[in-house]
């Protein structure tokens, strides 16, 4: 069964550093998403991506964040200058035309 994959599974970085989180969505899906989940809290929408551009973004997704689909398979989330409060689990998801979303296993980002 096709699945979304994410790398790395855990990323530790120092405050102010740039990080890139990587995702490979399900191959025939059209929509791609990033979510974050702070430990013990709800899943929060960051951004959706369709047809090589951002479709929607939340208030959390400020100028420090960017997304890219550099080739036909990868989907990346970049955080330019990490802050302590960026520490969270980041989930990538993809969906087909009916918007049911399939989540990857997540990247745990720890900012020290």
């Amino acid at each position, binding site marked *: 069964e096709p699945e979304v994959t994410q790398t790395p599974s855990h990323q530790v970085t120092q405050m102010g550093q740039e990080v890139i989180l990587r995702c490979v969505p399900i191959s025939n899906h059209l*929509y791609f*998403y990033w*979510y974050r989940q702070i430990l013990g*809290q*709800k*899943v*929060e*929408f960051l951004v*959706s991506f*369709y047809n090589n551009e951002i*479709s*929607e973004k*939340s*208030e959390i997704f400020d100028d420090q964040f960017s997304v890219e689909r550099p080739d036909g398979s990868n989907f990346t989330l970049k955080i330019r200058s990490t802050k302590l409060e960026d520490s969270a689990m980041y*989930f990538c998801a993809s969906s087909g035309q*009916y*918007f*049911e*979303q*399939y*989540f*990857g*296993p*997540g990247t745990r980002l720890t900012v020290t």
Partner: protein
Amino acid sequence: GQQVMQIPQYQHVQEGEDFTTYCNSSTTLSNIQWYKQRPGGHPVFLIQLVKSGEVKKQKRLTFQFGEAKKNSSLHITATQTTDVGTYFCAGLDKGQAGTALIFGKGTTLSVSS
């Protein structure tokens, strides 16, 4: 902005008892989705409801979408220990571009045998 509220936050049941979680949105939804997240895991898609008043069943799970498309419920009959996890509802806001899923805070279910 749109808010999705879910109650209860926690529920503990004995194995074999029923369980229900309720979801309410501040705005009319184009559809509602339900996800399950096991401890340490990622959200797993369970079902999507689109039509007003829709009811769908998956074995012991029954999902309902309200007539006004602002509320939903998930009912589990005769819980099993494998049902343990956090159940999230998530709504697609009717007024937006239709791609942002807004999650409720989830109901964490624990089951003792």
